[in-house]
């Protein structure tokens, strides 16, 4: 059984970040590699590439930054001290640790249940400008390749994805990600309420989901 189904069976509506990422990985959607634990000795530091990021990881905390639950750019020397600080702040919760990622450009991909059209996929440029400019576009799920291509062209920031100032980005990987998210949504349409993949880092080669939220009906 997929993670989503078992969470749904529990009667739980929100998934923790590690659960969302596992569900995405099951569906072939690339996410950051992560480790999760409540205690420092549960983390295998040898497997980490520093600097790392640490996040409180709980189905009950959807907005991690708002509660001071995210610490960025932690070096090997600071690791143990910072981990313990965060776990003392959230003693009941897991801490998720993952390597900091290189980014060229951040995008946001989401799913929402529209009351008229049902499950709908959103795409836009990520980061702090998303909400200010509302530079996003939608398609009703399922989408075809043509739709994904149009979504990339439709946002105002489209030139950034087309190699503005010679920044090379993997457009093909974004298109494939949109198709994969649409297929994911279609598969779980009955129980999925909304989802954010935010941010997704787009690189010269490939894309990677860095943070993700998911709510079930």
């Amino acid at each position, binding site marked *: 059984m997929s993670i989503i189904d078992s969470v749904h069976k529990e009667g739980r509506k929100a998934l923790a970040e590690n659960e969302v990422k596992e569900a995405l990985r099951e569906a072939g959607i690339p996410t950051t590699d992560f480790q999760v634990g409540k205690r420092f000795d549960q983390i295998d530091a040898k497997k980490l590439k520093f600097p790392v990021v640490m996040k409180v990881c709980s189905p009950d905390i959807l907005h991690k930054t708002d509660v001071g639950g995210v610490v960025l750019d932690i070096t090997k020397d600071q690791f143990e001290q910072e981990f313990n600080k965060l776990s003392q702040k959230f003693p009941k919760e897991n801490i998720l640790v993952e390597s900091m990622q290189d980014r060229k450009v951040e995008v946001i991909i989401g799913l929402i249940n*529209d009351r008229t059209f049902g499950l709908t996929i959103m795409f836009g440029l990520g980061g702090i400008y998303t909400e200010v400019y509302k530079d996003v576009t939608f398609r009703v799920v399922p989408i075809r390749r043509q739709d994904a291509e149009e979504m990339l062209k439709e946002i105002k920031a489209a030139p950034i994805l087309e190699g503005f100032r010679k920044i090379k980005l993997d457009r093909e990987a974004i298109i494939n990600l949109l198709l994969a998210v649409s297929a994911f949504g279609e598969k779980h349409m009955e129980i999925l309420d909304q989802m954010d993949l935010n941010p997704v880092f787009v690189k010269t080669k490939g894309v990677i989901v860095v943070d993700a939220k998911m709510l079930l009906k």
Partner: protein
Amino acid sequence: MGTVEDLRPIFSPKSIAVVGASRSPMKIGYEILQNILVHGYRGKVYPINPETPEIMGLKTQPSVLAVKEDIDLVIVAVPAEFVPKVMMECARKKVKGVVVISSGFGETGERGRQLEAEILDIARKGGIRLVGPNTLGYKDPIDNLDAAFVFGMPQKGEIALISQSGALCVGMIYYANGEHIGLSRVISVGNKADIDDADLIDYLDADPATRVIAMYIEGIKDGKKFLDSARRCSKPIVAIKAGRTAAGSAAASTHTGSLSGSDAVYDSAFRQVHIQRAYDVDELFDLARALAYQPAIHGNRVGIISNGGGAGIMIADWCESLGLRVPNISKKTAEALRPHLPSISTARNPVDVTGDARFHRYHATGAIMLNDPNVDALIMTCVHAGIARPREYVGAVIKLVEEKRNLKKPIIACWVGGPEINEVVQDLRVKNIPVYPSAMRAAKAVRCLYDEGKRLELIDKKPAKNSG
């Protein structure tokens, strides 16, 4: 049975009963009966009224059950609380379609919603298709059937109009008449309890009299069904979706939630199935007229002819800002234009034929630009420049449209300047040549033909199966 067969008895009835037909000119039932008779409907008409023996020279019957012959369509214009009883009688009579004009249903509150559910239930169980309730009815200028309660027939044409608002529907008919825009079928859908926009798209797609479907929409109940019909439709659809600014955000626990005001989703969903969105009545008909009477294009390069530099520049600006291009002309075209232009004008796009041009200069430069393989569409503009000859230019446009039809390049006119101009361009309107009073509207017309071209390319590529 498919939707098209289901809806035919409603929109192409062999017989009509009007329940609530009345001798009182103040009653809606009077007006409907009058309109049916005035416009020369050729089928049987049965006024239903238990209290009056005869109306407008026709013998009445106390109920549909008293009519001996079969009835295709029943138009109901009695107060809402009596409609369920009428519907039961229609079901017993095995009537195929009903138009419920009466208001006082889902649009009014809880009691109205219950009544609406009740009549829908009777219709479903009785195998009756239902338009409305709370509708103006419909007007069919092609088959001369006016089954609506407001007087006035649209001009015959190729654009079908579906409206969720009855009052605006009448306004749009008069607007279209004023613009010499002909309509094929006009349907006020009302509360869409049963027959909805999707059903009508299916029906009109199969209608040989309709080339373009124009819609005024406030809300759609079944989004998936609507998108499936629009996607299947072989004809272009232009739609106004009103209620854009209502705060329709879904529960905003995610960014996606807070960003997805319902209008943003409507906008994208329309684009997904290639519905062209209009934002007002004039724009709805601007686009519908271009789509009905000019060819779709697969390139976005616009040639412009003007008799005044300013008009040409404004059109060029609008074209570029709408994603069209105003290309440089080839050397060959420049050389061909040269002998037709006065020495003060340079042979370039936009072509400025200058204020003293007469018929020949317009016609010759227009033909040369249309023949340039780098030009996909032509906008011919005229400003009332005092010495200008707007009537001669109109003649030049008409001649070009007739001569160059085989090139399959749109010719759009843009005529600027007051009442005199408005009178002159009637000649274009009568011939269904799109003419607009502003650079923006002319450029948008070309853009919609380009979007239609893209829609057609995708339809051709689409595998032959219906989704959904």
